């Protein structure tokens, strides 16, 4: 070999890690300023809400002020269980776990069915032709419209909620996986075939990894819908969980618990989304490097 390749090599960029270290103190300061700006509006809203209330409530006594909500939340979370006067006392964690457990079951089910189905629909014209029209036909039916169906089939039980969650999560997952598998660079597939990969190997080693960014988009949307589905079905079809407490507390006029419950649902949605984003970050780390160097 001659020296020509060595010349281009020296001129080319080195592999990355130095890049991340280049971010100095200015970067950290900018970040904390951004965080400060982000909490400004929530603090203002809470303060205004508190000040607008008289005697611990506002809107003609319907809405409790933030301090009342906070007290109710603390009682709900840490109060002693089984006191006759306050049925919610100490049941927060149980209810959060009921709801989260159903979301987890339904969502895993949606993933197990949705990802392979989407990949196959995007990959094979035959599968797409037989399965896709049915999916597109059923998709416009809102999951809330499935409630009576679900109760009739599964009764007032966990399975009903899990079914709704799985169904709600399935659609965005399958649709995005389909797009991801359909948009794979044709030359990647040709290259793999040329190197001796069987059709199954192409699916596993090229189409699936190439579709992962789209699949994660689907997972994030699907998880949001899964939380909607669990709350709706617990309000109607199950006798436990955050959705059940939400409706029950409203019925007995405990708006402080209702608002604490709403905020709990929001926090759980945020937490589960963060979980997916973390996994996505790790699985798709090759993409981060890609954008960092470009």
């Amino acid at each position, binding site marked *: *070999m*001659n020296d*020509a*390749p*060595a*010349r*281009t*090599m020296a*001129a*080319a*960029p080195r*592999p*990355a890690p130095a890049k991340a270290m280049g971010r100095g103190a200015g970067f950290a300061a900018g970040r904390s300023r951004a965080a400060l700006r982000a909490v400004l509006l929530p603090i203002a809203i809470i303060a205004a809400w508190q000040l607008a209330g008289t005697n611990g409530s506002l809107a003609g006594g319907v809405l409790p002020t933030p301090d009342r909500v906070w007290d109710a939340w603390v009682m709900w979370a840490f109060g002693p269980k089984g006191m006759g006067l306050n049925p919610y006392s100490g049941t927060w964690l149980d209810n959060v776990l009921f709801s989260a457990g159903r979301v987890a079951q339904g969502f895993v089910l949606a993933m197990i069915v949705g990802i392979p189905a989407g990949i196959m629909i995007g990959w094979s014209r035959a599968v797409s032709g037989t399965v896709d029209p049915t999916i597109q036909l059923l998709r416009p039916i809102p999951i809330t419209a499935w409630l009576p169906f679900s109760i009739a089939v599964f009764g007032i039980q966990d399975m009903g909620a899990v079914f709704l969650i799985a169904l709600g999560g399935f659609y965005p997952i399958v649709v995005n996986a389909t797009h991801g598998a359909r948009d794979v*660079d044709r*030359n*990647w597939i*040709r*290259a*793999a*075939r*040329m*190197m*001796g*990969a*069987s059709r199954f*190997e192409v699916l596993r*080693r*090229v189409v699936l*990894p190439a579709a992962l960014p789209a699949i994660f988009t689907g997972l994030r949307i699907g998880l949001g819908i899964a939380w909607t589905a669990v709350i709706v079905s617990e309000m109607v079809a199950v006798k436990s969980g955050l959705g059940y407490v939400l409706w029950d507390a409203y019925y007995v006029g405990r708006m402080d618990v209702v608002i604490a419950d709403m905020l709990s649902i929001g926090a759980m949605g945020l937490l589960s989304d963060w979980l997916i984003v973390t996994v996505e970050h790790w699985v798709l780390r*090759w*993409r981060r*490097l*890609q954008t960092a*160097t*470009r």
Partner: protein
Amino acid sequence: MGTIRFREVGKIYPGKEPVVALDRVNLEIGEGEFVALLGPSGCGKSTLLNLVAGFEDMTSGTLSFNGGPVSSPGPERAVVFQEAALLPWLTVAQNIAFGPTVQRRGRAEYEPKIRELLRLVGLERFADALPSQLSGGMRQRVGIARALVMDPKALLMDEPFGALDAQTRMSMHQLLLDVWQSLGTTVLFVTHDIDEAILLADRICIMSARPGRITREIAVELRRPRSVEQLTDPAFIRHKAEIMAEIRAAQKEHA
């Protein structure tokens, strides 16, 4: 062995207005020969190469590789793509190992070979880099290493250096000449760059468009082993004048 033989091969892309991409193409490429396909954009060069690669089916005629029919892609006919087409989530070493891995070859067998190829293409220090961290020329070298690791009988290259700058291109030419000289693989090389075709090939097949066919074959009489210095050789200039005259004549015919 790595012989390629086209007999009256035709290729029509179906559609509302069917495109006749190739029309009665006859071509014979011998064992270890370096053949360049030269022609304007859209004349069917890629189509011809894709038929040998097994990416497309022909409409008429016969095509044989080593005396047998071509039915699907395979590692004995390695392809080097224009934009390298590396898998972006795999490192350089993993991209090169893709072929041996899916062919279930032993790690102990192919790992030393990958190290040797990385040295050959000057990328030992980049084994664990991702394709996106490489320059275009480096990516193309990975593409070549990925093809060579399979011990192909033929290398099919579709404008592999078309997207590179002039200097990088020249170093790639030298690399390819060196590799080919030491391995003796059959090479089918698609280009629309006249200089490139003369510098690299034993034989140049000039194609014309609509319908795509081979209008002329020119044997290149430049001594081997070749190097990029021969770009200024009198024989080189002579060939270039001959080819340009041929292309101009073809253009007039079409106008």
